């Protein structure tokens, strides 16, 4: 049985979530329900939940305020959120699970299953990435892979390449990571002022570009050759080299 805490200020939604969770699994043991940041912090100092369902808007603050108060986060977190686009982007960058309100049973199930399977390595870093992203100071992305989570700094990431439904991340230390999500997912997460979609299958870090060749290829400082699509040629050149 997994000790579970629900932090949500709306009674009806809290109750609704509880009944949905009961339908999904008998693995969860709901040990507490909190409405405000303070209550949640107090609860966690006494009890040791293993999984927390966390709303963004709470009485007396936000879900992130709660996590900040705690400092170390030893439990798995599934956010419950309604609409805030910028929050969702931050959560995706940190590879943090979330469910949208009103809750879809299948999405909830997937999130719960994943939370039960995956180890909590890099848990704090992932939350850190999301928090930094929210205050505009993030420079990392967390990649969720079958083996676990991988932190990748923006300034070490040379380019991403699409390969069917997968995306490969190439770093400047010759490491590469394959993630089972399409490139499109990351185009919206990675900052546009650093990473350029030069081709349908390529997202390139502008800082690593060495030169543009007339044959419509970008050559990176480490010698990699990246094709540029006809449609994007002009905008790519002007973005990377300025002017022209």
């Amino acid at each position, binding site marked *: 049985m997994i000790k579970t805490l629900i932090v949500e*200020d*709306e*009674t*009806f*939604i*809290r*109750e*609704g*979530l509880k*009944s*949905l969770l009961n339908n999904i699994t008998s693995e969860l043991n709901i040990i507490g329900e909190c409405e405000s940041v303070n209550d949640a912090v107090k609860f966690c100092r006494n009890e040791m939940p293993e999984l927390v369902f966390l709303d*963004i*808007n*709470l*009485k*007396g*603050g*936000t879900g*992130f*305020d709660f996590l900040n108060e705690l400092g170390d986060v030893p439990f798995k977190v599934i956010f419950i959120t*309604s*609409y*805030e686009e*910028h*929050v969702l982007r931050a959560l995706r960058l940190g590879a943090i699970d979330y469910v*949208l*309100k*009103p*809750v879809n049973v299948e999405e909830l199930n997937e999130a719960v299953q994943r939370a039960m399977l995956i180890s909590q390595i890099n848990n704090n870093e992932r939350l850190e990435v999301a928090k930094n992203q*929210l*205050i*505009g100071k993030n420079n990392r992305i967390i990649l969720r892979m079958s083996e676990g989570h991988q932190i990748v700094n923006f300034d070490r990431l040379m380019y991403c390449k699409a390969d069917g439904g997968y995306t490969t991340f190439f770093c400047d230390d010759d490491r590469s990571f394959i993630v089972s999500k399409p490139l499109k997912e990351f185009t919206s997460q990675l900052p546009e002022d650093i990473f350029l979609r030069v081709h349908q299958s390529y997202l390139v870090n502008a800082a690593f570009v060495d030169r543009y060749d007339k044959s419509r290829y970008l050559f990176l400082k480490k010698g990699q050759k990246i094709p540029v699509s006809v449609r994007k040629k002009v905008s790519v050149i002007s973005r990377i080299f300025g002017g022209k």
Partner: protein
Amino acid sequence: MNRTVLIIFLFVTHFIFAQKNNDEFRAEASKELLMRGEYDLAIQWLEPYVNSDNYTRFDYSYLIAAYLLKEDYVNGLAYSNKWLNISLSIADTVNVINALNYKTDILYFSGDIEGSIEAAEVVLQYYTPKDSVRETVTNIRLGGIQRQNGNVELAYTIYSKIDLENVILAGSEAEYFGNSLNIYRDLGMVDSAIYCSNEALKYSSTFDEEFTKVSQYNAIAAIYIDAEDYGAAMEYLDSAIAMSLDKNRRNYEFVYENYAVVYNKLGMIDSALVYVHKLKDLYQHIFMEKMELDLKDLKNQYDLELKFKTEIIKKEEDLEKSKLQLLLSVIIILLIILIAAVMILFLRNKNLKTSRDNLLINQQLLRTQITPHFLFNSLATIQGMILQEESSKASNFLSKFSRLVRLVLNNSRDRVVSLSDELEAIKYYLELQNARFEKSFSFSIRLDKNIEDKEVLIPPMIIQPFVENCIEHGFKKVDRKGEIDIHVYFENDSLICKITDNGVGTDAVIPEAIVPKKESLSTKINMERMKLLAKEFKTTASLEIVDRSKYDAQGTIVTIEIPYKYD
């Protein structure tokens, strides 16, 4: 390199020689044409050269000679004068002399004896000692003319000075002796006259001497008439008439005259009368011809004038045309400017309209953006109620929710909505929010009696964002039960909406990352909207947000001066 120079050199020299050969050939050919009597052909050929810069003296000589032989003295004189002037202007003495000699001849043949004498006297001044031969030629001509002019003594003086050697060198023996015999005859020196006539006949054999020969035969006949040897006279007259006499009619005159005299002296009055008639016909003919020529000249002049006039008319027409064209182009340019101005105005207007449209779109976007968070939360609330089997609560919530959504959708379609509709929407909104948090706050909406609520129109969704702000942020951090008071009233013709809450107040720091700039952005856009509408409605718009700590209380007071108009 050297080879190229050589080729160029060869080419140039060849060209020069070809040119020279061409000139020489033309001179030879012209002479041949004149000898064959093809005067018109010669004129046609030579005239273009004379009128270009590329002429030689032969071109002028043969052209003038052609006119002379054709008896077209007008053109002949014109060209000799032209040649004379050109030659004078470049001090070409040789050709001045040539031109003057031609002029002398032409004037003589055209009957202008005085002019001819004058020209001959001028040319005599140009001669230098080495021109003695040519001077002789001129003197021979001048003497002959002076005799014809009646100055026989003067002619005799001129001829007595002539050196016979020069006459032979010039080859003018025929003319010299022909004129001499006339002079001697006029002076009654019969023997000398007969001697001269025999000499003259000896030399007059070449082509142009036929004419001279006729006049010589005639002159000898006249001498024999003077000597009363009518048989000899008749013999010479027959010889003269036997020549092809059609060449120069002037000779007929004297021949016919002499025939008449001879027949008269012989007492053959009938025959004499025949020649008198012939003479009369000839004079008539010459007169007619002269008339014809004069008419032709007149016609030429008339044609020239006509041509000139038509040119003037044409030029005037062109001027008119160009004036018209200028006028037309000015009109077209003005039209273009006008159209451009209209288009610029139109585009600017369109731009203005576009910016206004943009604002409207912004407004609508804003409206749809205000609601999503609330929308999904409300739906989640309904989901929770259903899952808890609170069916009556869920049903109640759902009906209010749909009423609010309907009002918001309706209101957002219009630029202005009635105040009562707007307040109704806010009431539903507040009720729904209250239901979500199980009566966590209380609210009141107050409308002053002086407001005819149905008739007042205001921009939609001005009040709602501030009310939403109270609930979503104002009450979140405080534990006390929330209170919202919305008060709408008139103050000095201004429509005021005052929203008072007991929440956290504006002085409290709200973490901006979680509550992003959306609120401030929406406030900004709302203000823009309000100011734009205020201008249109001729009212004022303002916004004031005050923390109630000023008044020793907790919470915020938002005072909005809303632009409005009456329905």
